[in-house]
C-alpha cells in the first residue's frame, strides 16, 4: 500500500462526515418548513453509508497483496428519511388543512444534535488517523539518518 492511498482513505472518511454534517444542518434549518417548492412540507434527509469495498475488491486485494484498498473508503448516499410529519393544531396558519392541523417536518432536533456530536467526533478521529499516517511517513524518511 503506498503512502497516498492511506491519505485517500482518511480523506474519504472526512468527506463523508462533512456530508453527514451538511445533511444534519439542512434538516435542522428546515425543521419548521411547512411549504416547500412542491407544496409539501420539507422531507428530512439522511445519509445512507455503504462501504466502497465490494466482494470483488476483496478478491483483488488478496491477489495484489493488499495493494488495491484505495477505493475502499465509505460512500454516502443522501436519501429521504421515512419519518411521519408532525401535526400541530394551528387553525390560523395559511398551510392548515381542513381540520386546522399544520404538517411540520418530522425532524427531531434532539436526535439531530446528538448526531452532530457523533459526526464531529468521527471527523476528529479521521483527522487523527490522517495526522498519524503523516507522522509515520515523516519518520520513515528518517531511516538511516543521524549517521
Amino acid at each position: 500500500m503506498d503512502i497516498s492511498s492511506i491519505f485517500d482513505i482518511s480523506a474519504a472518511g472526512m468527506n463523508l462526515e462533512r456530508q453527514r454534517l451538511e445533511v444534519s444542518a439542512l434538516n435542522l434549518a428546515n425543521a419548521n418548513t411547512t411549504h416547500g417548492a412542491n407544496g409539501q412540507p420539507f422531507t428530512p434527509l439522511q445519509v445512507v453509508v455503504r462501504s466502497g469495498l465490494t466482494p470483488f475488491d476483496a478478491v483483488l486485494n488478496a491477489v495484489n497483496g493488499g495493494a488495491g484498498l484505495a477505493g475502499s473508503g465509505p460512500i454516502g448516499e443522501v436519501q429521504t428519511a421515512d419519518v411521519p410529519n408532525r401535526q400541530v393544531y394551528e387553525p390560523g396558519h395559511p398551510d392548515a388543512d381542513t381540520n386546522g392541523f399544520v404538517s411540520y417536518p418530522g425532524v427531531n432536533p434532539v436526535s439531530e444534535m446528538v448526531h452532530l456530536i457523533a459526526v464531529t467526533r468521527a471527523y476528529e478521529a479521521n483527522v487523527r488517523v490522517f495526522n498519524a499516517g503523516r507522522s509515520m511517513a515523516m519518520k520513515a524518511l528518517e531511516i538511516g539518518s543521524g549517521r
Partner: protein
Amino acid sequence: MSQINPILGGTTSQLVSVALDAALARHAAIAANIANADTPNYRPLMARFDQLVADLQGRVTDRTQDGAVMRDAALMQDALQSEPLIADPSAPQVELDMQMANLAKNTVQYQALLTAQGKLASLTELALSEGKM
C-alpha cells in the same frame, strides 16, 4: 559495475526532478484554492502534470526504455512551464479539508523525493571519497 551509472545523474535524476516540479505545481494549485476558498464562483485548480505522469508509470522499471523515458520527462518539464494549472474536473467547489489533505500528501511526497535523491547521491559521494569522508 555496468549499472552503477544510474546514480551519476541519468534517468532517475531526471524523473525525480520532474516529480519535484510537479509537487511544486500541485502546491501552487492548493495555495490558490485555499486562498480563494470564499470567492464566489471560483473553480478549484489542479496541476496538469498529474494527467501526464500516469503515462510514465509502468515504463520506468525497464532500463532498456531509459532513453524514451528521459525524452518524455524532459518534454513534461517544458510543458509544465507553459501552463501548469488547469481547472479541476472532479471538484466543482473548494472543500477546505480535501485541500488540506492534498497539501499534507504533497508535502510528504516532496520531502520523500528530496530525501531519497539525497541518499542516492550520497552513494556516489561515498564511492568518490573512498570512504574517507
